[in-house]
């Protein structure tokens, strides 16, 4: 089953990392990702730009466009992984590995219902 692992963390905190700290964390995460990719279990991965770049469309009638993320929370949705896991235990293990590489905050583990792999060739900025 495909699981979404949604990454929540305090954005101010992550934003206070030095470039070196940020790179060190990404390097550690890459090790976990590589293992999953090697096993053919890793789907799309995304790190989102800060919530200051977010816009929210409230589907009211008429719809309302608001600046900022959907919810004002202490911790923000900063990214996600899609991982193929046999069961929840495995998904929790993956999250644990990721958590060991990048402590703090929380992962929300959500089984995926419908999934379109998509076809875009657009690359996100490296």
């Amino acid at each position, binding site marked *: 089953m495909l699981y979404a692992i949604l990454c929540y963390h305090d954005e*101010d905190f992550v934003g206070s990392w030095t470039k070196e*700290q940020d790179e060190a964390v990404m390097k550690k995460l890459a090790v976990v990702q590589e293992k999953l990719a090697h096993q053919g279990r890793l789907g799309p991965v995304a790190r989102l*730009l800060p919530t*200051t770049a977010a816009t929210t469309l409230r589907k009211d009638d008429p719809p309302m466009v608001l*600046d900022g993320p959907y919810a*004002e929370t202490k911790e923000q949705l900063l990214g996600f992984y899609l991982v193929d896991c046999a069961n929840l235990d495995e998904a929790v293990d993956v999250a644990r590995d990721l958590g060991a590489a990048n*402590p*703090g905050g929380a992962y929300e583990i959500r089984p995926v219902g419908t999934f379109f792999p998509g076809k875009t060739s657009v690359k996100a*900025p490296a």
Partner: protein
Amino acid sequence: MTTTDTAWIDAALTSARPQAVGALLRYFRNLDTAEEAYQNACLRALKSWPQNGPPRDAAAWLIMVGRNVAIDEVRRNRRQAPLPEDDQAISDLGDAEQEIAERLDGSHYRDDILRLLFICCHPDLPATQQIALALRIVSGLTVKQIARAFLVSDAAMEQRVTRAKARVAEAGVPFEAPGAVERSQRLAAVAAMIYLIFNEGYSASGDTAEIRKPLSEEAIRLARLLLRLFQSEPEIMGLTALLLLQHARAEARFDAGGALILLEDQDRSRWNRKLIAEGLALIDKAMRHRRSGPYQIQAAISALHARAEKPEDTDWKQIDLLYGALELVQPSPVVTLNRAVAVSKVRGAEAALEMIEPLAPRLSNYFHFFGVRGAFLMQLGRNDEARIAFDRAIALANTSAEAAHIRMHLDRLMRDSQTPRGKAGK
């Protein structure tokens, strides 16, 4: 997260600092007391967090502890009585921390940080003191770090910060909750200060760029913070976008010898695409508000450069129009000078030269004026006049990189004059 790895504590303290010091300032109404309370709280955090793990809300923890310690101190001074042991005073924070965290989610949080930033840009303070104070108080850089970034001695910086603090204390801190008009005035003042901090880093020359880069990075952090607090302010989006787009070019701006590389000669593959993406996203968002302003216009100009994969793809026509818009909202000879560069690309050097001639009296001591003027004259083949302009530019250069850049032009003029015919026209 182990007890030996304390980098996370530094990041937690840095990120919690504006909110914590801002709230403590609201309690104590005195900058020194607030800062001292925060320092004390940090000392306890360094003792407690590695053992107990990070608190759920670092800022709330620091505010709570900082306040308690300071209040105890006042009591102690009053009664001269011994105090309970440190750990006792902070052992039972759970509920209190949650309570204070909930209250902080309200509007206080926003105005606390804005107030803290705002007192640093008190109009009585000269720009250099504003920046020093903000970096010390809000960002929490040490005097030593700030002194290094400003290339002055520790003692000189210490004095600058102390003077600034004294002036702020004299002026009094505005504690009443700001009204809508006042809040937007504060916001504008703070935005201007953040821009100044950024420029301190950005205007560095090649040999000092690395040392001064933290200033630009800190300005970006503050701009993002401000935008988090005021999510729907298009000018704050514009400011943040502008800083991100400018900073994205940092790696490409100097050659190995530290000489400045002009925009059109930069290796664009070295531009930071992630910062550009964020900047473009923000300017996009800002434009939807249809409430233009100087930061948005400057960001839009910077965005046009960022969007051009090659220099010749640059939409100079649009840039000319945007500078025209900027001239309207923020008339300044420097803006016109910048516009003239775009004009030279669209309509040629002759038109551009005509545009800047009237600026001469007001920019007679401005390095860039003579650099740009010389370049236009050189394009027109008026080499003798160009040489005079370049000589004047070198005399006015602020950094060795600026002077070196002009000298390059002069060398080319020399070579041209030795060959039978100079390069005329464009």
